[in-house]
């Protein structure tokens, strides 16, 4: 179990700073796709609930990476650090979308059940599990999101988490691309 302390403050700062760059990244991408820009639908209360649910999963993943990285070495550690940076960007984006919609972000959990990983393999299994939970969350949320721009934004994060799973599976000795449909069960 990880109880947030000082690192939480750093994560909060990182999340906030990444929110702006993540929002800019999506905005820039949209600018390149003016021909295909989705119709602007208003964000609804239900969307804010869904975004907060996804934020909770991202924060769980951030806690898992933060706790697990010290047990990893070499290329695995390098990959995990990169994935942590990306998870922070995801959280930043979700915070920006919640704020943009006029909603409020739920407080971070007081602690996260991460088990008791002792080895690098334990950590990889934990990270695989939290990434799969994120994928399940996005796949449940995307069809229920009202505005098209939210569905598209969430899908860009889902796809990145799917890439994380692919790398983690490879490190675990599993097929990196086991199925034609990524469902979170892999």
């Amino acid at each position: 179990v990880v109880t947030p302390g000082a690192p939480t403050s750093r994560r909060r700062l990182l999340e906030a700073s990444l929110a702006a760059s993540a929002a800019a990244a999506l905005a820039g991408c949209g600018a390149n796709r003016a021909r295909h820009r989705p119709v602007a639908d208003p964000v609804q209360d239900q969307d804010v609930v869904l975004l907060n649910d996804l934020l909770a999963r991202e924060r769980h993943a951030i806690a898992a990476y933060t706790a697990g990285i010290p047990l990893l070495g070499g290329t695995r550690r390098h990959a995990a650090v990169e994935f942590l940076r990306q998870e922070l960007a995801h959280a930043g984006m979700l915070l920006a979308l919640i704020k943009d919609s006029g909603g409020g972000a739920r407080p971070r959990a007081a602690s996260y059940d991460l088990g008791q990983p002792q080895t690098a393999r334990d950590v990889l299994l934990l990270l695989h599990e939290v990434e799969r939970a994120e994928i399940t969350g996005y796949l449940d949320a995307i069809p229920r999101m009202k505005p098209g721009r939210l569905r598209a934004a969430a899908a860009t994060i889902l796809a990145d988490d799917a890439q994380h799973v692919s790398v983690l599976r490879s490190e675990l000795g599993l097929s990196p691309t086991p199925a034609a449909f990524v469902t979170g069960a892999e």
Partner: protein
Amino acid sequence: VGPGSSIGEATRRELIARGISLAGTGSDVGALRATIRAEQVLVATYEQLLGAGVLSLPAASVATRFLSHERAHEAALTAELKRLGGRPPRRPRGLGDGTVASERDAVRLLLGLERAAISVYYSELARLRDARATRIAAEIMACEAQHTTALRELLSPGDISRAVPGAFVFGAR
């Protein structure tokens, strides 16, 4: 690409992009037709490159697995399209025989087309309204993203910053 023998990435990507224009943008049927067109180009290109004999055994193994994925995607999307009363687009013609100079060229071509397909899903997920079709499209977009990671790994083994280059996967058109 051998002159006159095949059509390169730019034209194949244009075929994918044209699928969006032809499909229209105002309905689930149109969105699904655009994604099916992208899958058709991918299926044809994987088939051609596997048949061309330019891939080594490890790369051919990856391509064979991904071809099966693309066929499954096309079948699932076509089933959704028919459920919603639409007709799938005709298979694109005139893609040549898939001749490329090297395995590296072949993998680059596939990577470019996978990214173009992801871009189609990114655009069309913003328009799809049907919940079941939306979920299937999202599952497929995630799979194509995994394909790009594996293809980049073939091009630059062990380079995680290339395999998973950014926090948000948009593809490229």
